[in-house]
């Protein structure tokens, strides 16, 4: 067995130098036959035999290529999506900013119109437009701070209004900011009167409730819906500023005065810009009646 194997090895070794010439001869013969057209059937057989696996591999290649393309496309889409998200975020911010500017513009226009409708007021240095910069920490008083202070000519007691009506008055002045005591503050009291019947009274704030108009003479008829304006008495507020609207009347024959619950015309939760009236003519009791300075829409009940 071992001898036979050795002989086969020796035979192989002897044949090796002949391999290349034999192969060359064979190759030349095949090429010659092919060029002469005798190998066409062999070509057909090879093509037929290789067709199924070639189709299989081509389809596999197509699938792989599709997968790679899909991954590339996904990456592109992801990048594009990120770009668009970034753009959308920037546009959203820009849109919000523009909306804010537009809102502020409208408010400024309203305040300007309001100021122009009050030529009787002498605004020292013109009207001061103040921006609310924060709310108070107290759950009862809710003072409002504005970004104008002593450096801007603001002094304690100055009335603060918006185009919708009376807000309150300055009660603390700092160099660059001030606190406003709202008419809803329990410490606030404002001389007011009804617009139609001219019934005088004092508007007082209450904790957690709508302010009330007190000390209304019982003989004067008042009713729900009446507009309340400042009377100008005491000289703290100019006459004719709209303060609110009567939403309830408490009348008792046993009491000396009537009381009315007032809905302020100003929405203090949404207030952003205010006017600080730095100077106004003091109204005397004998002066003729005046129309309300602002013309707010009737507040919803």
């Amino acid at each position: 067995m071992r001898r036979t194997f050795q002989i086969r090895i020796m035979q192989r070794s002897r044949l090796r130098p002949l391999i290349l010439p034999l192969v060359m001869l064979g190759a030349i013969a095949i090429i010659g036959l092919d060029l002469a057209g005798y190998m066409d059937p062999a070509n057909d057989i090879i093509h037929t035999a290789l067709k199924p696996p070639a189709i299989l591999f081509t389809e596999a290649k197509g699938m792989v290529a599709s997968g790679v393309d899909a991954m590339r496309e996904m990456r592109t889409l992801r990048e594009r999506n990120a770009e668009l998200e970034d753009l959308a975020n920037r546009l959203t911010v820009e849109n919000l900013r523009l909306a804010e500017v537009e809102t502020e513009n409208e408010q400024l226009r309203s305040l300007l119109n309001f100021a122009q409708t009050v030529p009787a007021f002498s605004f020292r240095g013109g009207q001061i437009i103040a921006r609310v910069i924060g709310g108070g920490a107290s759950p009862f008083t809710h003072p409002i701070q504005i970004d104008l202070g002593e450096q801007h000519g603001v002094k304690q007691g100055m009335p603060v209004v918006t185009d919708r009506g009376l807000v309150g008055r300055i009660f603390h002045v700092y160099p660059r900011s001030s606190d406003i005591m709202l008419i809803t503050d329990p410490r606030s009291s404002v001389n007011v009167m009804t617009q139609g019947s001219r019934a005088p009274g004092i508007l007082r704030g209450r904790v957690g409730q709508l302010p009330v108009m007190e000390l209304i003479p019982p003989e004067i008829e008042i009713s729900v819906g009446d507009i309340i304006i400042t009377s100008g008495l005491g000289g703290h507020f100019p006459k004719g500023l709209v303060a609110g609207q009567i939403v309830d009347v408490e009348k008792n024959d046993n009491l000396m005065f009537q009381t009315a619950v007032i809905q302020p015309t100003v929405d203090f939760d949404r207030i952003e810009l205010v006017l600080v009236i730095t100077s106004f003519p003091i109204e005397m009791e004998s002066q003729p009646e005046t129309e309300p300075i602002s013309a707010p829409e009737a507040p919803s009940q």
Partner: protein
Amino acid sequence: MFRIFIFILLALILVAFQSSALNALTLAGGHLDIIIIALIMLTLYGSFELAVLASVIVAPLLDALSGLPLGVSIIPLVSVVLLAHWGGKTIFGTRLGWPVVVILLGALLAGLITLAELALLGWDMPWNEIILRSLLPSALLNAIAGLAIYLPIVVFSERRETHLQ
């Protein structure tokens, strides 16, 4: 007989794979030639005679699918097998970088022989352009692929020999 059938079947699959899927895989103008790599591997780690037989079987298949005259690829592939066998037995052995070098040289050799054959058959061959833009990149690409294939084999066989000793 069964082994020959399996052998031919594998050759068919390999050629189909080479001519379809790998055909699209190009890098700087070079094509990956898995046939040459497989033949060199077979020569160095298998049987020389089997490698020659494989070359003779595979070459016409490649020619048929490449649109070349049948038999043109026989001499180039057998030359590559002879080169790998000669270098492996006389100079380098199967270790060191010979497998990678023979892939580089073999791919170039096969390409040059094919070009010469086609030129002899009357084909108008732009030699310089083909060598620079196709043969060299292909040879480099195949050498890199061969390195990736042979390196684990060499490492594994050396560890095995060390372990046996």
